[in-house]
């Protein structure tokens, strides 16, 4: 049906995007050779010395690398679990609510934190969790001594996961709510006629109705195992909590851009990119297999 001559227009339409992509995405991929060099920014990629896998073997000999890989996976996995469960419970509660206007208000409010930056939220959190801040004041009502939340390494992963759930649960609810509206209302009516209580309807109609969505989100979240969220941790952490809070991305930033160990930082980054790529690919394969999901 369509004119064959259209193809050249299509290429023309794709051109600006491809130029952009080439410069900021494809060229940096070639820059990954820095990982195999004793890179000297002064002379550039073409004149730096090649050192094979020395950066990688050095990386594995560092104590830091064990810490950052463990911290990254630990924090990321906790976040994945919490971000699957909390929005689900919240969506189910919202779904049981019968007052539409109230429902809309609640939704509008809980989506809000998603749209604020981690810089802003870190500023607020540092204040709220400070020595004299409101959280410590509430705790003092119960006789708890003030806690220096951001000075104790043991507190840090909890703060990170908790604040991430707080920021994102509302937004993550959207996809569950969309799935809930897809459930055929006549199923509820049939269940009610059969004498099912609200709890039984929840268990036998609602949950099966959105189980595919839950499986899908679980499969897709697998790709995030090495992403603990740079923006959040970078804005919240300090040297006192490096032992539990330093992740691959923050370490690469400090080692590469602040301490100028370009080759080493690139090697760690490369390892992360490769593993992440494999994980995301695996998660898409799982998602398409178990939930019939396609990105396009």
């Amino acid at each position, binding site marked *: 049906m369509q004119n064959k001559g259209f193809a050249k227009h299509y290429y023309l339409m794709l051109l600006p995007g491809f130029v952009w992509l080439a410069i900021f995405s494809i060229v940096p991929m070639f820059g990954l050779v820095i990982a195999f060099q004793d890179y000297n920014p002064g002379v550039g990629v073409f004149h730096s010395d090649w050192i094979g896998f020395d950066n990688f073997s050095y990386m594995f000999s560092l104590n830091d690398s064990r810490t950052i890989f463990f911290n990254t996976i630990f924090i990321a996995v906790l976040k994945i679990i919490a971000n699957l469960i909390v929005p689900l419970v919240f969506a189910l509660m919202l779904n049981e609510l019968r007052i539409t206007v109230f429902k809309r208000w609640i939704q509008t409010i809980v989506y809000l934190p998603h749209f604020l930056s981690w810089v*802003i939220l870190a500023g607020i959190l540092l204040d709220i969790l400070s020595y004299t801040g409101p959280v410590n004041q509430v705790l003092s009502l119960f006789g708890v001594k003030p806690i*220096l939340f951001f000075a104790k390494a043991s507190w840090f992963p909890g703060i990170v996961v908790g604040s991430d759930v707080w920021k994102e649960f509302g937004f993550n609810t959207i996809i569950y709510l969309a799935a809930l509206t897809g459930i055929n209302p006549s199923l509820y009516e049939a269940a009610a006629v059969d004498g099912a209580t609200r709890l039984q309807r929840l268990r036998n109609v609602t949950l099966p109705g959105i189980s595919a969505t839950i499986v899908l989100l679980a499969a897709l979240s697998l790709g995030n195992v090495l992403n603990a969220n740079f*923006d959040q941790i970078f804005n919240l952490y300090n040297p006192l909590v490096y032992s539990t809070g330093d992740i691959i991305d923050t370490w690469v930033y400090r080692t590469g851009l602040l301490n100028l160990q370009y080759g080493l930082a690139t090697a760690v980054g490369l390892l992360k990119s490769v593993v992440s790529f494999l994980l995301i690919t695996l998660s898409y394969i799982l998602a398409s297999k178990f939930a019939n999901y396609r990105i*396009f």
Partner: protein
Amino acid sequence: MVREKTFGSQAFDVLLIVLLSLIALVCILPIWYTLAVSLSQKTAAAAGLVHLWPVGFNFNSYNEIMGDRKFFHAFGISIERVLLGASISFIVTVLMAYPLSKNTRDFRMRNAIMWILVFCMLFNGGLIPWYETVKSIGLINSIWGLVLANSVPFFNVILVVNYFRNLPKELEEAALVDGAGPWYILFRLFVPLSVPVLATVTLFMIVYHWNEFFNGLVLTSTVDHYPLQTYIQQLVVVIDTQNMTEDQLRKLSELSNQTLNAAKIFIAMIPVLVVYPFLQRFFIHGITLGSVKE
């Protein structure tokens, strides 16, 4: 929906309303608290006397910001960045989405190109090669570094592609019969029909460019070139916690200018607070329509 009037069911409704109200309150209280601190007296804020209501209500911190040239300069850079960044990514996203929404019969290379794009979205060179590239083409301390340095927002392209594919085929065929070309079909037919998804991806880009601090941190070296988030990050977050001992951290609340910082944080939130309620109805539609396929 089935309605019930049993006591248990109604008690459950009441419990639900209370619980959901509390959750919503937890989401909004930290923002409210920041506003209250920004409107309080310095000494009261430092002593931790501010709870939910400003203590010694005044606009001093906001007046102080009025004379802060650096703050407004950073604010201006962020505005500039949002306008440029959102328009450029809008145009590029729409232009890429149209050919990619064709099936392979109409556009033979479609799948190959799509896979290249997916690969670029999933695999990247990492921080150092990216930084070296941006530096070598001279985008340090330039607004274009902030606007362009991150790659094409490909997730948005996918949303729009999926939306375009769900538009009725007959419309396009009718336009073709009338002799319309691809550019005309895209801009006079597809774009007007795709307002929800286009509003959604534009909102995402506006929020992204407004909130992004890292490119500002890495690609600009002086306060004259900072976008607002980087400015606030340097001011509030870095100075407060980096390289501090436990003791210093304890004295923090007395040292930092809490009311002023809170006011700056609050002003930086205002654009998002203003923009997002209006676009909320769009983005829920946009996301779900763009991500669900027939």
